[in-house]
């Protein structure tokens, strides 16, 4: 146990840097994913068939293939055409991946808003775009927050897969340490603790945010 604590303490500075990397990749990829998800969800509910087909293709491919394949494909495939650092290849892959799931969340929440809301807005002379922005989306986004929190947690943990394209984040750092010291169990436990701490922090922030939304109304 003391040796485990020693391992934990001695690697603390390195893991803090790695955790920062994990947070950066997660934060940037999820921010991009929100934008991607919203745009695709609006395409799907636009009622235009061609946009619906694009949506189905995107979500179908992303949900139908493993994330690790998507990361590898983007990293080795796209870098043949454009020079992309491992950081950006990984972040973009994660964004495209989470974007599909977030699009599904937004689509579901938009479609769950009662049809009467759009009818009421239109009957007041609002155009569909204005009605979407002022009436439908605020209600849909509020409903999207709990499943979105869930998706963000998944996104945070999924970021561990960029270890395989050579980014030093929590998981790759623990792999390296495990390989060098042969203390596999210890270092994967340490990795788990860091993820657990980050998820716990995020869950806490999310619940405070949800409470504030509830009392704001």
């Amino acid at each position: 146990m003391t040796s485990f604590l020693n391992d934990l303490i001695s690697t603390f500075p390195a893991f803090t840097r790695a955790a920062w990397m994990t947070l950066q990749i997660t934060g940037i990829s999820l921010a991009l994913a929100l934008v991607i998800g919203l745009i695709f969800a609006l395409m799907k509910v636009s009622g235009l068939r061609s946009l619906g087909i694009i949506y189905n293709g995107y979500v179908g491919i992303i949900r139908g293939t493993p994330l690790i394949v998507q990361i590898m494909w983007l990293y080795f495939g796209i870098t043949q055409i454009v020079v992309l650092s491992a950081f950006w290849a990984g972040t973009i892959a994660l964004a495209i991946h989470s974007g599909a799931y977030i699009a599904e969340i937004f689509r579901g929440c938009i479609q769950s808003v009662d049809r009467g809301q759009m009818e009421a807005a239109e009957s007041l002379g609002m155009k569909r775009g204005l009605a979407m922005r002022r009436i439908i989306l605020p209600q849909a986004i509020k409903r999207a927050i709990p499943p979105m929190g869930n998706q963000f947690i998944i996104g945070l943990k999924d970021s561990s897969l960029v270890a395989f394209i050579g980014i030093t984040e929590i998981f790759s750092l623990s792999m390296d340490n495990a390989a060098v010291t042969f203390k596999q169990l210890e270092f994967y436990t340490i990795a788990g603790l860091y993820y657990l701490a980050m998820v716990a922090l995020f869950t806490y922030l999310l619940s405070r945010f949800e409470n504030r939304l509830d009392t704001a109304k």
Partner: protein
Amino acid sequence: MINVSNLHKYFGKLHVLKGVDLEVQPQEVVVMIGASGSGKSTLLRCLNFLEMKDEGEISFNGQAIDPKTTPLNKVRENVGMVFQHFNLFPHMTVLENVIEAPVHVKRTPRAEAIEQGRQLLEKVGLADKGDVYPEKLSGGQKQRVAIARALAMEPSVMLFDEPTSALDPELVGEVLEVMKGLAADGMTMVVVTHEMGFAREVADRVVFLDNGMIAEQGDPETFFSNPQHPKARQFLSRVL
């Protein structure tokens, strides 16, 4: 003011409206009655293009509306609608509900819209509820807010789609009172309702729909005391 001629509407294979002709004069209160499924709500919803007609012509002030070429939002600005289930915007306060369209559609300055909104809320007897969210209101209060919201666009005609059907019986009266007040002010109104008392008292004309067609229409006194069409007689004997 509104002129409908030979209106047909299908839902898939179901022929819901089978050639309806209807004329509504300015300041007239037309009450449409009929059994459920007779097409009265569909007819009403066609008037502001929430349902699209399949055949026939709808014109406002002599101008035929072609949904393909006319911006429907412009038409709807002049046609207020009140729904059975209120459809208030739950994420906005009562006052925000009322000023939403004036501010964002008509571009009325916000202060002016608020002023006008408060007057409308007073008119429907809810002056003290402006800052409350709709979920805190009773059904009757919600429907009165919905009426104020529609009036805020200063429409030239108001459509009511079974405005009291979702209300507890003791709340029906307060909504009908507001509607009576509107009629007395000279608002042009087309009302789909099951409230025969309201039809008798307020309507200038009662339109009885049966099976997608206007079976009979006339002034309420004549219609209620001496209905001609057998289906109208049958209907009245069931509801009165």
